[in-house]
């Protein structure tokens, strides 16, 4: 079974389990990957029918699924080169303020997500601007896989899409802006109109398609900006705090959508995003870069699997420090820190997490929240 069929299968399974919204989004991804005008039309017709019916029904879903399955043999997946971007010892110093980003090195591959976390004013935006070549580094170098194909720096920069934290205002109708973006990218005529429609459907923006900038909330503005950025078919997307205007549910959905879209079969891209939503970003990131006063610390998924560090737990509840200390006495606790209503407990690396659960249960500690942060970049904040 090829990757395309596998994705259709996943959508079917999700539909069968009742997660129709996720299945719909996955189907749209497959349709976008197909790049087939007829499938675009069928998908949009199905979406119109779904809107008329109120929800998907089996027939409707199966019709579009079957059309995709029929198309599967024709599907040509993109074969990405090994590395999309190589960052070698890149650093920057602001002479006026004295702020410095110490040399950083990492790689971004197609379909990979890099999370940038850190407190405010620690260089996340500067790093993003360095990566999209908007700022000149003082040390190190940047290499892009697309460089060889591009005739000019401008052409290269047009493939690195940077979305700033404050979304710049659009003028005119939102759909016109999407059509304009696509036609500037050489996608014209009917294809243009259908692709724009599909993208707004993909990001859950259909109800707002005829709205103007002033008529939508900042969260939906961010989503429209994301739709516009995605329609640009970037090689690398650099998003500065894209979650700041979104509610908690939207944050999770959008991050999942971005991860899924970055792994597109036809047009995969690399994604670097900065955020304060540490745990949300960690869920989808292959590598998290923690920046503190310009110094970077890295936390990757592979590293998490192999490293042997002290067990760290974040815990919250209506109890005192002494009560917590008594409870954890048997678990070789090394340190307790109180930070903003939350305790961070550090245990010896050999301590199993189950011992901690057991101790909590035995002492009937009224826990409201608990998280194992041993392999999370959260620990860098402490």
């Amino acid at each position, binding site marked *: 079974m090829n990757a395309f069929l596998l994705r259709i299968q996943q959508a079917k399974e999700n539909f069968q389990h009742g997660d129709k919204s996720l299945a719909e989004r996955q189907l749209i991804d497959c349709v976008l990957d197909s790049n087939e005008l007829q499938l675009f039309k069928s998908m949009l017709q199905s979406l119109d029918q779904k809107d008329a019916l109120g929800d998907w029904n089996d027939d409707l879903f199966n019709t579009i699924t079957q059309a995709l399955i029929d198309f599967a043999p024709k599907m040509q997946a993109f074969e990405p080169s090994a590395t999309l971007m190589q960052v070698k010892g890149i650093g920057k110093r602001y002479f006026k303020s004295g702020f410095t980003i110490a040399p950083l090195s990492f790689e971004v591959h197609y379909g990979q997500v890099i999370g940038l976390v850190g407190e405010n004013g620690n260089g996340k935006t500067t790093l993003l601007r360095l990566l999209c*070549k908007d700022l000149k580094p003082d040390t190190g170098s940047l290499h892009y896989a697309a460089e060889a194909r591009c005739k000019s720096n*401008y052409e290269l*920069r047009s493939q690195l899409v940077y979305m700033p934290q404050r979304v710049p205002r659009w003028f005119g109708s939102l759909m*016109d802006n999407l059509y*304009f973006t696509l*036609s*500037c990218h050489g996608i014209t*005529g009917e294809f243009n109109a259908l692709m724009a429609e599909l993208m707004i459907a993909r990001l859950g923006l259909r109800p707002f398609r005829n709205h103007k900038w002033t008529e939508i909330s900042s969260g939906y503005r961010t989503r429209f900006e994301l739709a516009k950025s995605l329609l640009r078919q970037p090689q690398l997307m650099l998003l500065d705090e894209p979650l700041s205007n979104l509610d908690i549910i939207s944050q999770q959905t959008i991050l999942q959508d971005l991860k899924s879209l970055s792994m597109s079969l036809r047009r995969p891209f690399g994604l670097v995003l900065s955020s304060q939503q540490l745990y949300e970003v960690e869920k989808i990131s292959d590598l998290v870069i923690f920046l503190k006063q310009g110094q970077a610390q890295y936390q990757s998924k592979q590293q998490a699997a192999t490293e042997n560090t002290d067990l760290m737990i974040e815990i919250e509840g209506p109890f005192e420090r002494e009560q917590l200390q008594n409870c954890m006495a048997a678990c070789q606790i090394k340190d307790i820190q109180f930070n903003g209503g939350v305790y961070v407990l550090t245990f010896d690396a050999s301590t199993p997490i189950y011992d901690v659960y057991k101790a909590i249960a035995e002492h009937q500690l009224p826990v409201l929240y608990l998280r194992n942060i041993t392999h999370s970049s959260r620990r860098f904040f402490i």
Partner: protein
Amino acid sequence: MIKTLYKSLLLKHPLLWNIKLPQVILFIAISHVLFFLFGFFSVYGIIAFKLQDQFDANNLGINLIGGLILLLGLIVWLMWYLRNNAFKQFYPITVNDLRKEFLLVFLIFLLGMPIFHSFAYGKHLHLKIISRNINVEADAKIVNLARHFLPINSDDFNGDNCCDSLAAQNKRNEAASQMKTRCYETTYNNGSETTDYAAAEPAYDDTAPAASRSTLYSYLYYCQTPVSVGNDAALIHHTAKRWLINENYDSIKLSLINYFKLMDKYAVRHNVNIDTVISHIQKMRAADKQLWGSSSEFSFLTEVYDYGAFSFTPLNANQADFGGLNTAIENVAENNKDNFWSLSEWSLYGYLALGFSILLMLFRMTRLKPWISSLIGAGIWAMLFGLMGIFAQSELLYIVLIYAILSGLLAWINIRKQNHKLRSAMWLSWFSIIQLSILPLTAWMIKDATKEKTACVNGYLEVIQPAPPIHNWLELHSQTIMTEVNIVFCLLLFLFLCIPLAYRWQANPSE
């Protein structure tokens, strides 16, 4: 249909959609038609020819209305056009796309600028229709002949203002061509120069000795051609003098009758008794065939026309709008020239359109700070030109030229080497504006450096090295170089140097 066209443009031709080309062209076309109609129907009839201000295209009212319409149109267009900037958003556009955009902006300005011209053209066409049966040269001849017998201004009949006979004129011209320029030898070869006109001028007047001419008045001394149409002044003077000397009063009377008929034809008011005029001529000629006292017993009054009012007061005796008739005939002649949309007219609009297009494109391609600095740079450039004019220092021209070339060079180096982004944009913006002066200044410099060399030899200025052909060629074509050639040169410079540099600059990182 409009919506379909709008969406079709948006989906297929983003540049045309963004620049709002159909809407702008439609607006410009409607404006031109409206202004043409305003002009066409602003002509009251034949009377328009004698009213200088009515004929003139520089009508304050229409300029004000036209200016406001243009300004309003420009603001609305810019509000639409500046909404999207694909270049600054790093959409995948090429240098050629930027060139196309610039040419479209230039075209819009070029077509939009001459709406005042359309007003004048409407007027011109209506006047041409009115005057299609007028033989303007014959009318000019009638006026120029008849005016010999109408002592409107006694100074015109003074001996000082008399003209030479044809033979005398030829003799004078011959002497002038052989005349040498005197000079005083100094440490510099060409020293200070004077022209020895007094020594070269003999007394050629064939009607009276030169010394007594200023105190004499006579019909024979009249030497004017009040209407500067046609080229037979000498023949007309000769005819008039012959009639006066031979006392051919019937011919003189007929000439005056024709003159006042012409006034009727051009709706020019008059209240002159021809017999009184003839009797004055007879009296003056009878009393003394040569002399006429300065205190004339006969005088005409020229009608002063109030342009704002059309209620005419009755004319006094011997009062007429003599100047009005001259103006009318000259205006008919001017209006009949078919150079209304000539290249030189277009070059003025070309300059304006080019200047505005460059400014707008710079605003689109660079940032606000360098754009404002380019305006300041252009101001400094204009001040240098002003200083050059005040102090008449040709050395300042070199400074202006060096300033222009240096800014171009610095823009090129800084952008290619990815140096300071703001500064390199500033140099580029400055150069883009002051490039307009490069070609005219260079041509002027070459012309100045290659002019003929003279030296003072035996008290007279002599050419020791004649000017090379390039000097004469530049002298001959300086007007064309300043206008049409320079517009094309700047257009090419902006298209093939400034735009590629701006394209490269946009991709350069900041510090």
